[in-house]
Every structure is written in C-alpha cells, then in structure tokens.
C-alpha cells in the first residue's frame, strides 16, 4: 500500500482483528473448556470464558482415560496419539521417498513409455483417497491390511502431488551439474544422494510439513478401515467421545482436541526454522 490514510489503516486493522478473533476464539474456547470440569461447562449457559482449575485432572483423564465424576468410562487418548503419530510420520516419509525416486527416474532416465508413465502418475492427481475409497477398501481388505499401519498409510502414500513437485524441481537443476557429476564419476544413485538430495532439502521440508498434517488429520479413511480400538487415530477418538452412548464429557473432549492439535503445531514450528535454514543454505 502506498496510500497512507488513517481511516484506511484503522479499517484494515479492524478487519485483521476480526479475522484473528474468528480464528482464535474457538481455540481459546477449547483451551478454556479443557480447564474446567464437565459440570461447570454443562451448568453455566453461556459457558464461562475464564479458565477453570480442573486442568490437571481433565488432561490426565483425556490422556490416560479412567472413570469420570459422571460415571462414564473413558479410554485415554495416549494410544490413539501414538497411532496418529506413527501414521503421520510414515505417510510423509513414505511419500517423499517414493516420489523422489520416481521423479528421479522420470527426469533422469530414458526408458520406454517414459512420458506415458509420467502422465499415468499425473492423472492420479485427480483421484484423491475420497474418490477411490470404495475400491481401495476392497483391495486393502482382501490383502488383509485392515487394522494395520500398512493399511492406514499405504493407500495415502500413493499420490502424484509430491512426484510432480519433485519432477518440476529436478527439471530446474542445470544439466551441467549432472554432467559435472558424471565427469566426477558419480553414478546415478551417488548423484541422487550427494547432489539432488541436499539440493531438495527445502522441498523435502515443505512436503514433510504438509504431509504430516495431512496424515495426522485423516478421518474418513481410518474410520472405514479400522475396527480395532487399538488402531484408532486421535481424530477419530475425538469424534467417539462426542455423542456416544454415554454422557459427553466436554472438558475431556476439549482436552483431547488440544492434545491432538499440539503435534502438528509443533511440527510447523520446528520445521519453519528448518525451512528458513534451507532457503538460506541451498541455492542452485
């Protein structure tokens, strides 16, 4: 903005504040609710916006489970958090490995039907999990992968987005660099490891963050293919706490939600530093 009009400044700040409020208020509500007891939440209408003093107890119940004051039996979120963490790690790692290797093959090797292969991968961009969920379920079920980590992750790993991204990146790596490596005697995999991998650090970091959150937030797929409580991810756990056969303990629901929000937030925060480092360090 070049113009400096006080009215405009005030207005834009108001709009921004409104935006922050819209995003932050539910978050605040969640945190506050998680510090109160379930009676407090249920009895005061509207709910008190001041933090309560039951935080420790609520989080303990949320994490480890147990019997609440209202007498309902709750299973803790800890095992579910673990399931979520494992899936959310396998998905980006698997995805990055697979897509880097396939992009490497497509860009650097001349094999028959190379373009066809690329377009086949590309077309799958139009088929996210939700679209092919029926057939995918069939396949996973007949392979006996229901209620396993493999079943939770593999169908989500296969995707073209990352392959496409790495392909575009590899295409920008100058040919002379490839030739220099050839002159230096680096074979294909050596070139991949010593040159492409370090140069891709930033893209890898970006993809990791995006895919971690994607994996963490999966709901529909696990809902379909997990029947064993040990394999429930935490996002499903939250849903199960609400409107089950028993009375909804809103404080526990909120605490679980907070717990479920923490790892993605942490990943974003940690990787952000790495992003910047990558951006500063690596340059073609």
């Amino acid at each position, binding site marked *: 903005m070049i113009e400096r009009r006080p009215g405009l400044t005030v207005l834009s700040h108001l709009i921004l504040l409104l935006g922050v409020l819209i995003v932050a208020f539910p978050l605040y509500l969640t945190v506050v609710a998680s510090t109160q007891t379930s009676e407090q939440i249920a009895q005061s209408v509207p709910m008190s916006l001041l933090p309560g003093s039951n935080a420790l107890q609520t989080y303990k119940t949320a994490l480890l489970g147990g019997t609440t004051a209202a007498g309902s039996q709750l299973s803790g979120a800890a095992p579910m958090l673990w399931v979520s963490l494992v899936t959310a790690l396998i998905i980006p790692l698997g995805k990055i490995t697979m897509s880097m290797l396939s992009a490497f093959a497509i860009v650097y090797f001349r094999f028959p039907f190379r373009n066809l292969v690329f377009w086949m991968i590309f077309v799958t961009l139009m088929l996210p999990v939700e679209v092919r969920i029926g057939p995918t379920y069939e396949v996973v079920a007949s392979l006996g992968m229901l209620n396993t980590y493999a079943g939770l992750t593999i169908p989500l790993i296969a995707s073209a987005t990352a392959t496409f991204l790495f392909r575009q990146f590899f295409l920008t790596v*100058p040919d*002379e*660099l490839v*030739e*220099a*490596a*050839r*002159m*230096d*005697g*680096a074979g294909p995999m*050596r070139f991949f490891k*010593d*040159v492409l991998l*370090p*140069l891709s650090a930033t893209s890898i970091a970006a993809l990791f963050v995006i895919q971690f959150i994607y994996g963490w937030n999966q709901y529909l797929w696990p809902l379909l293919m997990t029947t064993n409580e040990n394999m429930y991810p935490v996002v499903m756990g939250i849903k199960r706490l609400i409107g089950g056969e028993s009375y909804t303990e809103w404080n526990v629901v909120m605490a679980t939600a907070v717990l479920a929000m923490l790892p993605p937030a942490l990943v974003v925060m940690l990787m952000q530093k790495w992003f910047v480092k990558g951006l500063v*360090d*690596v*340059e*073609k």
Partner: protein
Amino acid sequence: MASITLNKLVKRYGNGKTVNQVIHSVSAQIDDGEFVVVVGPSGCGKSTLLRMVAGLEEITGGEISIGNRVVNTLEPSERDIAMVFQNYALYPHMNVFDNMAYGLKIAKVPLVEIQARVDKAAKILELGEYMQRKPRELSGGQRQRVAMGRAIVRQPQAFLFDEPLSNLDAKLRAHTRLEIQKLHRELGITSLFVTHDQVEAMTLAQRMMVMNAGVMEQFGTPEEVYSRPATTFVASFIGSPPMNLLKNAPDARPGTIVGIRPEHLDITATGWALRVDALEMLGFERLVYGRWLHGAGNELVIVRSDETQPVPGLDTIIHVTPRADRLHTFDAATGKRL
C-alpha cells in the same frame, strides 16, 4: 598425459527425415601436451565436438582415442579427462574444498592424498582462503578458478574447456587467459579449448582448429591460420577487420577470389584505384572503406592505415597497392585456397 586422436568423427541428431548432421567427418591429431583451441561461429558444433571427446554426447560415427585407447564406449569418468564448463557447474551445496575433492572421493583416493592434491591446486590458483566458502559466496572469477581446480586435482590425461571465460568481464578474461597459459606451461597437460572468440583462440592456441557448420576448415598454428588461411571462411573469420575477399580486383583471374588483409594494403601514388566511401578513425588505426573506381558492383575494399598517413577525404580517389607476398587466391566455387 596423452594425445587425442579424432578419426572421421561424425555427429548426427535425430533420425529419418529430421536428421541433422552437426559434425562432418572431422579428423585431427592433438599431440601430447599440446594446447589446441577449437574456434568457430555460434552453432558450428564446437561444443558438440568437445562433448563427444568428454563422453557426454554419443558418437554417431568415427573414433576418438585418448592416449592409445579408443574411448568411444567409455563413460566420461573412465576417460581420464577433466572438463571446465561454461557456467562452471560447481555443486552449490558443497564448499570449495568439497567441490574439488568430490571426484577424488568417488575414485576412493586416500584422504591424505586428496588433502595434498587439493591444497596444491588451491595454491596454484590462489584459492587458499576460500576453501570453506560455498560457490555462491564467490565472485565469478573465483568460481571459474574453483572449476579449474576441480579439473586440476584429477591429474587427468587431458583438459577440456568449453568457453570457460565467456562469463567473465573483459579485464578478468584477459587476466585469466594469461593464467591458463601459465598453468599449461607448468602442468603441460594436453588441452582442448573451445571458444568463439578469435582473440582468445589466437593468444592461447599452439594450434587452432577453425570450424564452420560442422566442418573443420583448417587446423594449424595461429601463424599459419593467419598468414595462409585454407578457405575463404577462415580468411574472413580470423582477423579484425576481416580480410578483403575480392571478386573484382583488377588483376584477378576469372573464377578466383583475391584475398588481401586490410593491413597489407598500402596507400600509394598508383595502383588499385578506389573512391573513398567511409572512414573510421580508431585512434591508433584508421579504416578506409573504398569502392572500385572501375565501378564493379558494391564490393567494398577495406584499407587499414595509421596516424602517420594523411587522412584521405571522403569521395576522393586513392590508390592502393597490395603487398605481393600477402596476396591470397581462392577458388570462387569451393572457397579453397589455390
């Protein structure tokens, strides 16, 4: 160290109807320790030729030997050569030391030896203080030296250079040219150097290969190429201003072209009569552009004179005499020297 032999080398791109022959049966012998410059206009196939020697481009026909070994099917790294690229092609994420050492590490040279060789190269190229820097923290000239260092540490049989100076400014280019000369004197490694710049070619070459449209027009010392150009192309490509190639000189035999360099035409009292068409005053030299008085077409004759001569007026008539021993005759049809 080794000689490089090109035997009827051919390169074609594409096939069937779209075939594009880029190198037409080039044969040449580059002696052990010799510095040969390949020069020619853009697109004439210089880089292609060099890249075939390097092993980066497939050979369509003919043979390349390095030393006494035919290398046609060998991988670049097995040919025992090193290449300096136009854009240097340094690994952006490695520091100067690692850039130079990378090839040696892959070749499993012992660490002590790597250290010693890199140190030595760094010393020759005065790169000592930059060893820990990344390429992007270096100036163009320094990057160029790192690229040379990477070639030197390999202790190869031959160096290949593809226009390594074209990204440097004029002053640095002149300086680096001298450095490369010095380096070649010290190391004595067979070198093949590609450029489109005739000054670079004339100053660096022990022998030069003049290429045009994939054909090697002449292969000889700069002196030979300058004083006895083999074709009209070489005559006009080497030398600035270019040689006059005259179809209408008064004493020319029909079917021939008379060649005379502007610096070998003297303004005299009698001789070829020209009407002065234009003048270029360049300080130490003057270029006089004249047209035949006997009115033969638009042919321009360039005469080079210096400040000791009087300045002819525009549209006046001057007489010039070619130095007899500097006259060249070419076949008008083939362009070959007669």
